[in-house]
């Protein structure tokens, strides 16, 4: 009899344990998570791509116009860089803001180091790069972008991480590319490359971390730096790709982070020309160009490299074009809605998420059928960032 009572008691305890467990969110990974920036509301929407749903929102992030995001190496935390100099750290699992520092007056983006311990922010005001502890957001290093002889500071653009605990970035006003080696975070070693071309406006690093490229606004051409051989200096490629044509006005600067890299081809948006440029890696020669709907802003390759999806600058920004790379043909022109700002593929390429700022909506497409498979209400959505970036150089 006693024995039965004991079993009964154990049973009740087990039921209680189960009941308590049910009150807590089930364990989950972060590999299918991401966030969408709600630029006007200073908020991000945390989303998951398996069920294509929103999990929750995190607000109080300041001015998020032009905000971008990198992820901790475990994919749990997102670092959101705001325009107002705010560096925000968000716990994706709890959908909570766990850290925020306003580290400058005007910022443009950031990067996370190879070992995941440092977060760097590129600043317009005061011009330079500041580096923070990824865990605590405590300041670690300050690299003012001082140039010339009168102590002027340049706006910094195109900041990326590179292998060897390095950060690489461009100085818009100075026309320089700098490499900062933070192997010893207390004493950054900076290597400067001068006269790389006029008005570098953004940069990218190839997915293998070898080549850094800066797009130039002030001239037709691209500055290329081989990070395996920095001693060889910066070289110019694709000089005069506009072939002397008068450049068209640019109502939104192309973003080079999304420069598509597919096999041995790079697909680059031209600045001031309604074309994509196809460039062969290693020879760095133009191997083709594709006329498109408008000034390309992002040209993003599907992860298998077979398709490239392109969006456009104002006022032609209600269109997305899909290019089949082997045939170099436009295979689809979509009209998803007003102000297409960004596109992000899931890491295996079965979905592409598209933000439509003026529709207050994010849509998800199947890249094979180009059919819409989901839509979520999101307030003035801009950047979409998935945690797969945590494991990629330069993102």
């Amino acid at each position: 009899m006693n024995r039965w009572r004991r079993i009964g008691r154990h049973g009740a305890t087990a039921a209680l344990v189960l009941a308590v467990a049910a009150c807590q969110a089930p364990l989950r990974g972060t590999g299918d998570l991401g966030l969408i920036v709600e630029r006007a509301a200073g908020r991000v929407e945390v989303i998951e791509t398996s069920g294509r749903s929103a999990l929750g929102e995190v607000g109080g992030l300041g001015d998020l116009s032009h905000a971008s995001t990198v992820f901790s190496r475990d994919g749990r935390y997102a670092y959101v860089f705001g325009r107002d100099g705010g560096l925000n750290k968000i716990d994706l699992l709890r959908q909570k803001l766990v850290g925020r520092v306003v580290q400058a007056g005007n910022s443009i983006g950031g990067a996370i180091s190879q070992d995941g311990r440092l977060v760097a922010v590129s600043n317009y005001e005061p011009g330079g790069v500041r580096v923070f502890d990824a865990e605590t957001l405590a300041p670690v290093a300050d690299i003012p972008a001082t140039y010339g002889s009168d102590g002027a500071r340049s706006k910094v653009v195109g900041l990326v991480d590179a292998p060897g605990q390095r950060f690489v970035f461009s100085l818009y006003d100075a026309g320089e590319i700098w490499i900062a080696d933070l192997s010893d975070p207390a004493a950054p070693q900076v290597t400067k490359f001068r006269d790389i071309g006029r008005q570098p406006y953004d940069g990218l690093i190839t997915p293998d971390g070898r080549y850094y490229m800066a797009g130039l606004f002030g001239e037709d051409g691209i500055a290329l730096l081989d990070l395996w051989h920095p001693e060889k200096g910066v070289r110019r490629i694709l000089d005069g790709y506009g072939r002397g044509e008068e450049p068209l006005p640019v109502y939104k600067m192309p973003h080079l982070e999304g420069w598509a890299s597919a096999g041995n081809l790079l697909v680059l948006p031209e600045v001031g020309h309604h074309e994509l440029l196809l460039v062969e890696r290693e020879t760095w020669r133009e191997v083709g160009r594709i006329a498109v709907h408008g000034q390309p802003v992002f040209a993003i390759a599907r992860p298998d490299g077979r398709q490239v999806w392109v969006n456009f600058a104002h006022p032609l920004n209600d269109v997305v074009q899909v290019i089949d790379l082997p045939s170099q043909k436009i295979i689809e022109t979509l009209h998803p809605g007003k102000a297409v700002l960004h596109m992000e593929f899931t890491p295996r390429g079965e979905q592409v998420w598209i933000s439509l700022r003026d529709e207050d909506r994010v849509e998800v497409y199947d890249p094979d059928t180009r059919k819409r498979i989901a839509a979520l209400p999101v307030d003035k959505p801009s950047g979409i960032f998935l945690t797969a970036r945590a494991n990629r150089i330069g993102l």
Partner: protein
Amino acid sequence: MVRLCGIAVLLLSVALSQTARADPSAARQADLVYQLRQDCGACHGMTLKGGLGPPLLPTALADKPNNALVETILDGRPGTPMPPWAFEITPDEAAWLVRRLKEGLP
């Protein structure tokens, strides 16, 4: 001839001051402010405190003549990324925008 020119200048200035007073409709004003924050904001910052482009806050614009600013909006600034907006913003609308920018947007 001199007098004729004088009258022409007078008429022109009257015409200009009248067009300057022709504010856009309320709906168009809302569109312009939205565009200012969202599209101009791409370079100048959504709060207009600057980005790749310079700040457009009242203190930054105070010493710049209105007509130069209107011209910049309509024709852009060659040698910089500032593009011309005359294809979708009229001179009246640009003048209205400049006045609003100098007052400071709420």
